[in-house]
């Protein structure tokens, strides 16, 4: 059984149809890239999977591990193993990163019927994961993402991903706002998490990110549905030719 199966998904935001009969299958262990022009529905797809309220599903189905994902609240989806790495991670003044991480991890464990982690065990895991991403301990004591640079925010997203050990990671334009060094650190962080029982949906506008996180399959999203599917070489083709043909193809 596929880990994620999206069938004929229609989604509208504020009455405007964004996803238009999207079909997508992501297998366990797979890295699937979703590329497409601005406005094609990439971020909508990411938010619908995570369960954001303003997105109205008018038709279709999303199965996660065979279960109806759309029937679950956002926190329940997270506990099942769905993780969205935000394009613009939010700042939460007054909530220390450590508190945030511990609350999230323990809430998920509780929902899965697991014991809460002891403080030393939790600390060790965080410091381990943070060390690999070059995140200073001082940053963990500060408010979540408060005063962080763009690169630091994205590294913090990967830290959360590493700690929460999701089964499906949706990366929403993780490369946006990153310089080449930050892109490398973040990509390496993601690559370390690749595993046979974990899949990735990597949403990006540019092929650049896919040089670092090499996908198994590339889907082109256009006008709210998958217009083409190919191997990793498809990303290079898009980089060379642009998205013009997809925009016209659907428009005609």
């Amino acid at each position, binding site marked *: 059984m596929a880990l994620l199966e999206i069938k004929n998904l229609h989604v509208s935001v504020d009455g405007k149809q964004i996803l238009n009969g999207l079909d997508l299958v992501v297998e366990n262990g797979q890295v699937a890239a979703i590329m497409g022009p601005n406005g094609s529905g990439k971020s909508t797809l990411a938010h619908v999977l995570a369960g*954001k309220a303003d997105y109205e599903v008018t038709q279709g189905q999303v199965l996660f591990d065979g279960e109806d994902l759309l029937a679950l609240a956002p*926190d329940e989806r997270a506990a099942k193993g769905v993780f969205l790495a935000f394009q613009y991670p939010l700042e*939460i003044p007054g909530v220390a990163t450590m508190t*945030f991480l511990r*609350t999230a991890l323990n809430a998920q464990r509780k929902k899965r019927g697991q014991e809460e982690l002891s403080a030393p065990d939790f600390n060790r895991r965080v410091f381990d994961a943070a060390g690999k991403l070059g995140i200073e301990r001082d940053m963990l004591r500060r408010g979540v993402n408060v005063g962080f640079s763009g690169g630091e925010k994205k590294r913090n997203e990967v830290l959360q991903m590493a700690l929460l050990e999701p089964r499906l990671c949706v990366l929403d334009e993780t490369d946006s706002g990153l310089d080449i060094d930050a892109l490398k650190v973040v990509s390496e962080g993601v690559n370390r998490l690749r595993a046979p029982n974990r899949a990735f949906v990597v949403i990006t506008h540019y092929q650049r990110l896919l040089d670092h996180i090499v996908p198994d399959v590339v889907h082109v999203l256009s006008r709210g549905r998958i217009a083409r599917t190919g191997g990793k070489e498809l990303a290079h083709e898009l980089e060379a030719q642009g998205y013009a043909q997809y925009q016209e193809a659907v428009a005609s």
Partner: protein
Amino acid sequence: MNAELRPIKTAAETALSAAFAAQKAQLPGMASAREAAFKRFEAAGLPHRRVEDWKYTDLRALMREAKPLAPRPDAVALARAKNAGAAFAAVEGRRIVLVDGVFIPELSDLAALEPGLSIRSMALAAGDPAIAERLGHVVATDNVAVALNTAFMADGVVIDVAERAALTRPLHLVAFNSGGAPASVFTRSLATIGKGARAMLIESHEGAPGNDYQVNTALELTVGDEAHVDHVKITGEGAGALHVSSLMVAVGAHARFNEFLFTAGAAVVRNQLFVRFDGEGTVAGIRGATLLNGREHADTTLVADHVAGDCVAREVFKSVLDGESRGVFQGKIIVRPHAQKTDSKMAAHALLLSEEAEADSKPELEIFADDVQCGHGSTAGALDDDLLFYLKARGIPAKEAEALMIQAFVGEAIDGIEHAGLRDTLIDHVAAWLKKRS
């Protein structure tokens, strides 16, 4: 000219007049001050919404009746007070206990007073001309709630900290209402912190839930030159209580003064603060957090009066309003003509957790000096949906996500408290409030 002609008295006003006539002879000392204060009350009546300072807290409407003056606590009341203030054990303060407005030495921790510290009963001290001279003069006001307090005050404490004395333990004034028959309690305290002294004074006001009682409490606090004083007032009265508090503070030169008001509980709370900066070079933080639910009403009214220049004052008030509650903030910064280089900033933020909750905010600046930095900001709004989604997307259930956000919101004010034990205790109070809410 403020004395409006009001021939018709409310039931509460009539009851107060009768109580004063009948009981003034038994009240301790200060007879002429009491008479003058009562005249002030009779002329003005209970303040109502057409009196600008009471615009959002119409005491005349909120106070349907005046409860009889509380009797001296009996053995049952004292037994109930045994664990009063226990919620603040982590503070390790020196307990000074008032039960139904009466100072109870047997329940207080008066052993081995630190050098330079003196604690006395107001009822006993009120006959002392030296006390009479000071009372009502720290920051003089014609405020009607203060006048009522002066007229009816039964007891309280007189605390003196000598010059240069450094108290190692906080003083913890516990005002406990025992929950007997409906009653009203008038307490008046006077604290004088000498030059260069260090003191922390915590006041916690607690009472039995559901009991119907009225508290009018007042504290006059003098912060000497170069002194370092923290005053924290926690209002956690029972659900039926009406609590009116007046705090008058005169701060000397080159002092440090930190004020914190924590309010959760009581049906109606009015916290009024009159802070006057008499000397240059003082740094002050005046902060507060209010948590309301149901039909609770809490009003914080602050006047920061800069008589001397070159002081820095930061005022931050946060309120979390749920149910049909109403949070009021009135803040006035006055900068007198010679108080140049004053740096005073005030912020009031309200978080509305329900459609029915209401926040009223009235910041005012009255500036008569030309070289100052003053400002105020005020916001009211709901929790940010995008932030909540971020937390939920990480597996944190909606209620817990809200709680985390609320704690963060209030935390910005609580973090200003220097005493770690007290800070943690108040954070626990917030957590308990949140738990009760969900």
